[in-house]
């Protein structure tokens, strides 16, 4: 069980998220073409590459800097709504008080909450509007309650991933109110919101990536 997130762990989390997106990007674009313009998968691919680049071992600077630059770099993806939301989310994480070289569960939770706060500033969408917020908000909330229960980071991220997945699933029964899909009314009923699905994949990827990193630290 992981107790702290340092630069290596963050790199593993991002790598895990990138791996999940890469395996699902076609489905993401398909979902986006139902109500949008079909580019969400491509955008997320580019965003994930930026995340990975931001955490290559060569990168100097503390966690705070790495998170801000990772977010900025995702903003530079030119991917429209989703890359802006995610970019602001990651760069916003750096607004949290990060003093040490690594974050414990409470610190990681605070960072995610700061990211959510920044992202929320950029959209009026709330859960039920069929956007990535339907996955992001419950994910961060689950992280918070797990942390308050004193759970370890692994447990907390598992809880967040499950909450994100449930939130993404729930968008199937919603009609979009924001983004390109909002013009569609009923037409997206029965389909997940691609952005929400991406958020779920990212949190799932955090967990699997961290598991690997844990495995390796054990071996080392």
């Amino acid at each position, binding site marked *: 069980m992981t107790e702290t997130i340092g630069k290596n762990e963050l790199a593993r989390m991002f790598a895990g998220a990138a791996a999940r997106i890469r395996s699902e990007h076609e489905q993401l674009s398909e979902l986006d073409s139902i*109500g949008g*313009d079909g580019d969400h998968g491509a955008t997320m691919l580019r965003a994930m590459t930026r995340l990975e680049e931001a955490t290559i071992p060569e990168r100097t600077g503390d966690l705070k800097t790495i998170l801000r630059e990772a977010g900025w770099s995702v903003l530079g*993806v030119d*991917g429209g709504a989703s890359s802006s939301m995610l970019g602001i989310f990651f760069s916003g994480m750096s607004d949290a008080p990060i003093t040490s070289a690594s974050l414990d569960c409470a610190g990681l939770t605070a960072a995610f909450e700061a990211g959510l706060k920044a992202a929320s500033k950029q959209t009026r969408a709330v859960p039920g509007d069929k956007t990535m917020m339907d996955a992001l908000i419950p994910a961060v909330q689950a992280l918070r309650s797990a942390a308050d229960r004193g759970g370890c980071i692994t447990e907390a991220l598992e809880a967040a991933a499950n909450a994100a997945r449930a939130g993404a699933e729930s968008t199937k029964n919603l009609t979009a109110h924001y983004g390109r*899909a909002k013009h569609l009314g009923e037409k997206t009923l029965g389909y997940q919101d691609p952005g929400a699905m991406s958020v779920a994949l990212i949190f799932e990827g955090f967990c699997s990536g961290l598991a690997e990193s844990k495995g390796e630290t054990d071996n080392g």
Partner: protein
Amino acid sequence: MKMKKFINQPQRIVPELLEGLALAFPDKLRLVGSNIVARAVPKAAGKVRVVTLGGSGHEPGLSGFVGQGMLDFSVAGEIFAAPGAPRCLEAIRMAAERGESVLFVVLNHAGDVMSANITMDMAASQGLNVKMILTHEDISGGPNPEDRRGLVGFLPVYKVSGAAAEEGRSLQECLEIAERMERNMRTLAVAVRTATHPSTGHAIFDLGEDEMEVGMGQHGEAGTMRMQLKTADETADIMLDLLLKDLDVKRGEDLLVIVNGAGATTLMELLIVFRRVSHALKEKGINLARSRVGEYITTQEQAGFQLMIARMDPELLRYWDAPADAPYFVTP
């Protein structure tokens, strides 16, 4: 239907088309920074700069309107994708190089708006004097302005604010003129055949062999009214009536009308549609003050068109008529 396009690598489309644009119009514009298009000859120091952002694949929109009397900078995104905030900020920094103030024209699309808002936050934190105007004139979005997309209406907004800036009006004045133009314009689009996404090669929407869709967005976003294909006159009447009603146009008022081709629809058809629009306005006692028929913002080889109407006042007409010299919009 297999995509057949003259491109090289899909991921090189945007830089290559922008380079082609700069090479074709060296006297009008040049490339600066990363996929940012700037006027070849900047307007006099101190005058307000007009900057816009938007995805590519809509040529000549948006960068084809950089030039004297119109845009000073255009930030080009990937195909159908808004450019990120960092590049928008880069452009605004260049525009404000010598302390000029900047009018930032943004078409209402989720991605563009988000980039623009983040850009405005950053610009403010850096003490830049920027004001943003959002164009949202697509009546298919329903009553709530926020839900209305920005379609070809960007053109008169660029034109009148660009002319006002050229004349030396203040940022506040340019903004007010742009806002008055924006408040008084309405657009509705119709599509009859889909386009292929130049990067993916996939059709961006589906439509039955004898159907047309009114309210279609600029990136394959589904519309609001799917119906049997109609004649040019019937289609023009349906769309014009919705627009006139929404803008609440009265007898005797002056209108600017733009018929914008989506890509594969011929100028032949656009002119036949315009003919009906002109007749219908005459019947209703509304004055067709100005008009344009052509391709200003396209969606690849999509077939269809946008019909835009705008209520004009003497000042707006004066700025609409003012000289302009952009690659794809010239007024002598």
